[in-house]
């Protein structure tokens, strides 16, 4: 188990190294002079000089690179221009909000996606199956911000059941968190619900065709046991690998969802940072979110290995 985790972490190191190089390169790739882009049209030469010095852009690229990696190892990613705070500490305030929202959406995705996929597979080619797959197609086709807008109009403005936006921390007020997070989580989850339902259905159909399912039925097992014990537990193994992709899609989708519902998470922060040319924040935030996702994927890989003995003993 420990060696497995270690192997996965070591395997992820080259990816993290390249991710950090790409994010480092971003600010240096700004066409023209980054300091004038950051300072804006009206900046005086003295101000530009100041910006260059603050960001270390006046030093040779090799020195900048050493500084960047030195900072990374100490958890120092520079200072956000917009927030006037350390990039790391801003991220640590905002990331939990995105994680809470994504986790809520992940629960919705797993419950609805798995249930409808399994249900559709068991009723293959019936009206229910077709209806479920049509809804899944609708789910993967409706843009999450459009669904969010429609939900705001309907549930917040017309019915007044839920607030149009804003955010209450879960630890401050769990009910308030549910009220502010439910619409964003649903609009965020729907794409992934559709994807997972489609994948679950096809994996289940694949498994249900296997010989051991026929054997289980032939020896007289009740259908419920055949499905729950023999089919589902085998179908879930490949589905586990999709969870990593789903989390990445959720974090990606949260960018627009957070902006739409005024939720102070990483997505909203990074959008604001880009619009305000806060490059240290963009570069540091992008690196930290990606590193976080790499860690999640290591976790998913380890779970997968634990669930599937064939992989474990490889």
């Amino acid at each position, binding site marked *: 188990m420990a060696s497995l985790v270690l192997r996965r972490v070591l395997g992820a190191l*080259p*990816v*993290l190294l*390249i*991710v950090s190089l*790409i*994010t480092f390169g*971003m*600010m240096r*790739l*700004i*066409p023209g002079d980054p300091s004038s882009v950051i300072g804006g049209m009206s900046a005086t030469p003295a101000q530009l000089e100041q910006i260059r010095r603050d960001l270390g852009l006046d030093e040779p690229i090799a020195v900048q690179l050493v500084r960047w990696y030195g900072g990374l190892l100490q958890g120092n990613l520079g200072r956000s221009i917009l927030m006037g705070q350390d990039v790391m500490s801003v991220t640590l305030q905002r990331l939990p909000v995105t994680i809470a929202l994504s986790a809520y959406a992940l629960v919705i995705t797993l419950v609805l996606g798995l249930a409808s996929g399994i249900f559709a597979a068991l009723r*293959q*080619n019936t009206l229910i199956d077709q209806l479920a797959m049509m809804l899944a*197609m*609708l789910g*993967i*086709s*409706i*843009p999450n*911000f*459009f669904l969010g*807008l*429609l939900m*705001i*109009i309907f549930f917040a*403005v017309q019915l007044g059941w839920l607030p149009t936006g804003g955010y209450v921390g879960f630890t401050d007020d769990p009910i308030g968190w549910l009220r502010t997070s439910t619409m964003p989580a649903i609009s965020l989850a729907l794409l992934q619900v559709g994807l997972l339902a*489609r994948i679950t*259905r*096809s994996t289940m*159909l*694949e498994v249900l065709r296997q010989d051991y399912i026929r054997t289980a039925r032939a020896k007289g097992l009740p259908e419920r046991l055949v499905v729950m014990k023999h089919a589902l537990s085998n179908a879930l193994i490949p589905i586990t690998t999709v969870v990593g992709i789903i989390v*990445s*899609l959720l*974090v*990606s*989708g949260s*960018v*627009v969802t957070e*902006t739409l519902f005024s939720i102070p998470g990483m*997505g909203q922060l*990074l*959008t604001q*940072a*880009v*619009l305000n*040319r806060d*490059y240290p924040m*963009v*570069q540091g935030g*992008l690196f930290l*979110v*990606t590193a976080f*996702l*790499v860690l999640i*994927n290591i976790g998913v890989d380890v779970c997968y290995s634990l669930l599937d003995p064939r992989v474990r003993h490889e």
Partner: protein
Amino acid sequence: MNSAAAQLELDADVPETHVHPARATLKRLFRHRLFLSGLGLFGIILAAAVLAPWIAPTDPTKLAMRFKFRPPGSEFAFGTDNFGRSLWSRVIWGAQLSVIIGSSVVALNAVFGTLIGALAGYFRSLDNALMRVNDAMMAFPAILLAIGITAVLGPSTLNAILALAIVYVPRTARIVRSSVIVLREMEYVQAAVAAGAGHWRILRRHILPNAMAPLIVQLSFLFAYAVLSEATLSFLGLGAVPPTPTWGNIMAEGRQYMVEAPWIITIPGIALMITVMGLNLLGDGLRDVLDPRLRIQQ
């Protein structure tokens, strides 16, 4: 001999019952329900994009304050926005921009995704280096990487295309690479190597044509993602710059008036949905017909 002449000779030689494989595939596609419904939906958008100058002659950026907030009706088919601009014109020109952006991203992916995927899959010495970079690019959440790139390049239509191409090329390359790795070991390829064919000839004549099916399927889904991602970028204010109408920025502007003029957001939203659903259905149909291994059981 050019290919048309070769085709004629082929057709003459074979018995009448034989159908050319490409034609058989087309025939199966045009009997496929999902493919046809996708083609129908996407066809509407494509037609709007191509015919924009004729069906929407009103300038989509022309302000006419006295007509503002007209609901959809006989005067303005799709109503007007807060500046009295015709939503019919804006949505149709927006369709054109979406199609241009989607097809550009698809074209860039077809070229660079195939190139990188073929090199990595065919030359083992390149595989490791190329795929490590590829994995790193894919580790970024797609939209966040796209807005990061837009931050570097600045918001514009061209930069949105570039950003989305950079985000999606690694995903396309991965798909091409996995087909190439399988095909490389096939006996007919070994035979070509034995017959003395060079790397370039083997890749172009023997491997890539057989790697096309999964690529085409991927590209049709990619078109959908590209249109959706571009709408997301311009909804966030990071795509084409107003007053150029895109579905995303029309919806962003309409957001303030969503109670008194809900048509400003619903009409482009529905257009976006039709496009994405059409392309997804097209992709499903293509996958069923071209790539039976990936088929979702019917």
